[in-house]
Every structure is written in structure tokens, then in C-alpha cells.
């Protein structure tokens, strides 16, 4: 007779690491888009870490990219999130740069880092969907 063993399978988690750039509207986009992925689009499959915790935190935080396949989301081409993640934690699986993405879609950046208007919410959706697409790619691997 066939014996079956029940094994609990935890869902695979993907780490999302936005730059959160406080100075730039594109940095604000990274925050809102990443929260949308974490809260609405892929809540069961995504986790995040505050990028500066790689310096302020300890060994556990620095092992983040070893524990999870990661996607970095940068507001500008300085790519602080990708560079710091690579340097302090591990190589990200995917890297998204908001300025490149907006250019590709012919969309203007928000006018303010402080407040997003209704039109910017559509841009948040676009960025969030792009992140979610990369999450799906990792989950399918």
C-alpha cells in the first residue's frame, strides 16, 4: 500500500528592496509601488527590508538577499538600491530603474516627492505591475 507523507510547503518569498529616495519624486514612486505589491498584488509572496538597515542592522539583515531572491527598485540611475544590495547583501535577481521605465512608456515623473496626484497613481500602478511581473518570473523558476 502506498504511504503518503504530508509535507507543509511554505510559499516562496521574494524580497523587494526599493531605494525609497526621499529627495526625488521617483523615489516616492518606488515606495508607493512597492507597498502596492506587498499589500495588494503579491501579499503572500513578497517581503521587504528598509535599504539603510543593511548598514544600521546586523548580520541577519545583511543576509536578506541570501534568504530571498530579490528585486531592487531604484528611482534614478544612481541605482543606490542595486549597488548597496549587491555590496552588502547579495546580487539581486532583477533590477528596475524607474526613470528608464517611465521613459520606455513615455510617462512623466510625478511633479512632487511630497504628494502624488491622481495621475501619479496610474504611474504607481504601472511600476507595481512591472515589479509583480518580475515576482511571477522568479516564482515560476
Amino acid at each position, binding site marked *: 500500500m502506498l504511504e503518503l507523507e504530508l509535507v507543509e510547503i511554505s510559499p516562496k518569498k521574494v524580497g523587494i528592496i526599493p531605494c525609497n529616495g*526621499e*529627495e526625488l519624486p521617483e523615489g516616492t514612486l518606488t515606495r508607493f509601488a512597492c507597498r502596492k505589491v506587498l499589500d495588494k498584488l503579491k501579499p503572500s509572496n513578497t517581503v*521587504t527590508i*528598509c535599504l*539603510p538597515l543593511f548598514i*544600521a*542592522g546586523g548580520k541577519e539583515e545583511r543576509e536578506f538577499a541570501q534568504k530571498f531572491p530579490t528585486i531592487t527598485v531604484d528611482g534614478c540611475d544612481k541605482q*543606490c538600491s542595486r549597488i*548597496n544590495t549587491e555590496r552588502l547583501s547579495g546580487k539581486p535577481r532583477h533590477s528596475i530603474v524607474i526613470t528608464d521605465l517611465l521613459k520606455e512608456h513615455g510617462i512623466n515623473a510625478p511633479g512632487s516627492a511630497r504628494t502624488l496626484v491622481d495621475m501619479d497613481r496610474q504611474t504607481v500602478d504601472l511600476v507595481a505591475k512591472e515589479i509583480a511581473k518580475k515576482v511571477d518570473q522568479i516564482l515560476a523558476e
Partner: protein
Amino acid sequence: MVMPCSGIGKAYGEIGRQATYALMDDLCPDRVTTTCLAKLMIGDPDAVDLIKNNEVITVDGCAHDCARKNVESTGKKVDRAVRVISAFKQHRDLKPAGVLDLGEPGYKLVKILAQDLAQGIDCPVRKED
């Protein structure tokens, strides 16, 4: 320089950022600026120069103190370090609605924090209305 943390796990990070924007845009527009915390982590020369050549206040959402620790990693000692969680403890009725969408109570806390910061850096605080 006012340097808020980059926290997006809880609302306290967003309260610190919004208080910083309120200082820059409304309360002390000629005296306060900020830069991306993450730029300090890559040693961006312009960001590091701004930090080293100005008074610096850090505004951290939680006890990890990421903003203060990242500023101090450049060799700069901060002039004032504030934790949003401490301000919240004095106004527990002002519970933010969400992590990034703070709602009315969250924005009241933003104003209180921004005014406290403005007084600390000798900015003329404008009365509301």
C-alpha cells in the same frame, strides 16, 4: 539638512518624511533641505558633502535609527536625532490610517513633529490658518 529614514514597514517612516517635506516647503523653505539616505550608502560625493558641511537632524521612524546610523557612517556626528515613535507616544490618539496614506490623524502628527523640528532649528513657525 533634515534626513528622514527610508522606512516603509510602518507609518512612522512616512510621518518623518512628510514632516521633512513640510519643513522644506512650508515652515523653513530657505533653511532646510534633504537628500536621499541611500545616496550616503553609495558614498555619493554631493550627498556626503551636504552632510559634512551642514547641521544635520535625523528623523527615524523606529529604534533601528537607520537615518542616524547612516549619517554617522560618513563620519558626521548628527546635531539632533529624533524618533517619530517618541512623538507618537505623546499623542497616542493620533493613529495613522495606513503605512503611506496617513489619514487625518497621521497628518496631525506630521504637523506636530514638523513644528517641533522647526523650533529646534530656529525657524519661524507659521500659525495654521
